[in-house]
């Protein structure tokens, strides 16, 4: 547990200041923890886990706010884009409606107002609800340090349980999506109708399919995607292939067996709707 007196929080107003602070801190081997909405960080603080005593609060950096539509099918989410921003964005409704579905089911209104997509990604929880949608939509994470920028596909962003591609001197500055064609689908399975930590999440955009809560990280169902792309439509085979990537475990929230069955049932439902025309809003 951290005493309030031990906490330092820096609150830069520009991205440049933020990146400089990060660089200086990691050069001194005293990395700063970026903080966006704080909805994940506060939970760990409150539980007496000590991720860090030194925070870099990004909330004042106006440039990182909001959602932008680009080109015909592009969306750019600033690092501070919240679930509420997604729910209120016409472009998101049009281009990636399942992100609105997901955003509406994250926490309660207070969490939706503060929680960000970037925080959801970087927190690295396998049960994250925003990540599967973005992963199925082939999103790219834009990382920037004081030296420059690099782009990493979200599907390649995780190296293991809560291990990400980000270096200590980098920030996620944006998440970019060129929404692929095809039917979209989002399923969040939980014990209660709201405020539920997902037991299984599935997001699909066309042939692209991502699962949450079934592996150490959110995963793409690569084997199944390849099969379907090649024209495969056999339900049993599709279910078998999905379970090559979705390898759930038993935990406090559910059983592995249950999650496997739900994955299989969701895959069957998804396959059934795959060749129907995409829904419109």
């Amino acid at each position, binding site marked *: *547990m951290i005493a309030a007196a031990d906490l330092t929080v820096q609150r830069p107003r520009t991205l440049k200041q933020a990146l400089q602070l990060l660089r200086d801190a990691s050069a001194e081997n005293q990395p700063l923890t970026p903080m966006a909405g704080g909805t994940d960080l506060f939970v760990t603080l409150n539980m007496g886990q000590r991720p860090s005593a030194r925070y870099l609060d990004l909330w004042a950096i106006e440039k990182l706010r909001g959602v932008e539509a680009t080109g015909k099918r592009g969306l750019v989410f600033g690092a501070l884009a919240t679930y509420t921003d997604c729910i209120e964005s016409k472009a998101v409704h049009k281009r990636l409606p399942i992100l609105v579905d997901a955003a509406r089911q994250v926490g309660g209104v207070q969490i939706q107002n503060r929680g960000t997509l970037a925080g959801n990604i970087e927190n690295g929880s396998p049960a994250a609800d925003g990540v599967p949608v973005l992963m199925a939509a082939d999103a790219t994470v834009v990382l920037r340090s004081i030296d420059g920028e690099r782009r990493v596909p979200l599907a390649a962003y995780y190296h293991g349980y809560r291990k990400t591609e980000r270096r200590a001197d980098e920030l996620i500055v944006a998440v970019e999506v060129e929404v692929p064609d095809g039917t979209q689908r989002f399923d969040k399975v939980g014990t209660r109708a709201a405020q539920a*930590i997902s037991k299984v999440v599935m997001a699909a955009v066309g042939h692209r399919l991502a699962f949450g809560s079934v592996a150490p990280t959110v995963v793409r169902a690569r084997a199944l995607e390849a099969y379907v792309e090649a024209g495969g439509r056999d339900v049993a085979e599709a279910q078998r292939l999905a379970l090559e990537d979705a390898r759930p475990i038993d935990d*406090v929230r*559910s*059983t592995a067996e249950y999650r496997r069955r739900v994955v299989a049932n969701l895959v069957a439902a998804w396959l059934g709707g795959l060749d129907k025309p995409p829904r419109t809003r």
Partner: protein
Amino acid sequence: MKKIGPPVDRVDGPLKVTGGARYAAEVPVARVAHAVLVLSTIARGRITGMDTGKAERAPGVLAVITHKNAMHLPPQPTRETRASQGDHVLQLLQDDHVLYNRQPIAIVVADTFERAQHAAHLVAVRYEAAPVDVDLLRTRTAARAPHPPYHGTVAQTLPVESRRGDVAAALAAAAVRVEEVYTIPAETHNPMEPHATIAVWHGPTHLTVYDSTQGVFEDQRKLAASLGLPRENVRVISHYIGGGFGTKGAVWSHVPLAAMAAQKVGRPVKLVLSRPQMFGPVGARPQIEQRVVIGAGRDGVLAAIRHEGRSSVSQFDQFCEHFTAPTRALYKCPNLDTTERVVSLDIATPCQMRAPGEVTGTFALESALDELAVKLAIDPLELRLRNYAETDPETGRPWSSKSLRQCYQTAAEKFGWSRKKPQPRSMVDGKLLVGWGMATATYPANVRPASAIATLFADGTALVRAGTQDIGTGTYTVMTQVAADALGLPVEKVRFELGDTDMPETPTSGGSCTAASVGSAVHQACLGAREKLARLGNGGGADPSVDEPFAAQLARHGMKRIEARYDAKQLETRDRYAMRAFGAQFVEVRVDPELGEVRVSRAVGAFAAGRILNAKTARSQLLGGMIWGISMALHENTVYDPKLGRIMNNDLSEYLVPVNLDIPAIDVLFVPEDDPYVNEIGVKGVGEIGITGMAAAVANAVYHATGRRIRDLPITLDKLL
């Protein structure tokens, strides 16, 4: 009784919504210091070392109290010597033993809450941990009879065994038989307001405690006994309580510990449990396994019931869940065997939780009856009507009143039960399976001795006082109504005060007994005051409030006030009648067959509980009970790590209860009931009956929807796929 019944708004409502109602932790006390508990991280063993240096040196810290430096207390009661219902065996830093996970092992006091909390985390503890046994369903420890001599529930001591007729013979001869085992995990109360205590010493021998408690007098007794003080030297005050549900029905360790800490630092001390600390050291519903065997004829008439089982208890204290109590009372059945056993585990002592025994027992019995109905292809409601108990099946006594038949009818009609298609999986809504289930609700009509004082003033107002508690149920409001009614005054002219051991003694608010017990005392005290006034003369036997206002009468006699006290006892009719409230629960669920998700989409409950004092507060109690029944059926589960004995979900993120979106519109219906025998005001109490039967009604609906019978609560998604 004109003032009684209508949905009068809570008299304390404006104070509550404006923040003017002061809960225990909010009472302003000069120089108050803040205490935070340190809880054990192991579940059994010994403390071999404690490093408190860092905590002691932390800013603002006034004291770190452990078993090494705690004040020595007089010998505390043990499991064998404890005196009463509320006399728990506590852990008061008197030795190095750890008996359960999250046991208080130190208390840190500082000038601010934040500093105390910080320092509490700096206390380093070394343990010698012993192997643990925490899971009722996996333990090898044999069940045993509960400890004599004391194993009572809230209102009365109930037998742990009962026999009538010849069950073995009747079962052997029965045309059909159902035999199943039902389990319920430990559930944790979690009222919105956590436990909170402020202890203020006045010199070395007098103590005032502001506590969030369901029983100020029990609190007073236990504090006095633990600290070695005369009872009259301890005053307990509890004006507002944000829910209790049984966890605040008796004193737990943190209350005397707060007093010890206040003595140590020579300042008043405030101790508030955090939400995670509500799991462990302040009770829970025990883990329970029940076996129900029913034999019946083809016509559904019950021939025999055997109901037996075991519940968990701690290694060092007593508690017995009386889950067979409803079975002994609900249906006409000539042959019955009931047995309750306990198993000692390395857990904290379980305790009463809303409708103890009645809610757990009805889950098993009402599920088993549904199974019998399925086997016989008889409608479950019809099955219950065929076995309706016109008199108390245990004692043969008449009921003081019983309107269960009307409850069934009213609820079934509102629900549309006659349109049920009996076959499981036969009702659908799109891809969702729809299921209907029902169950009987019941709760004993408890009354305990209570006193009240009514004072009439020359300004035409009245003050009525009784030491009782308002645990959120509406005691302030309904007692004001009862008094206004007896005095013939408007509600606005009457003030009711409670929550103080300096006031007349009343029972702990448990067992749904407050409205009946305190209400009787209030009613009689008010009548007594009127009578006293009338006896002064010139009353002429006429109604003084009508003929001549109190104010004028008092003035005429040159008096400023007149006062009367009444000590209400149980009526002798208790020996001649059986007394219970009854109800009927009907539930509709929708189940997603691909995902196993269950949502309750409709619920109707009809209840007959004697006179309803206030239609609004009574409805809230019943509604809250029904919602909790849904929660019990689908969500609640305190998860222990079987190897370490730790509670793994000690917060409201992982210990699930329903959210708003999970709860549909619920119909609460009252069946009017006039009971002249139960007590002076004809009240049976509505605090607990609403939860009884509900879990079974949900489970029965899930069966009807899916064809799957879930006998192990909670009914989680994985059990349905």
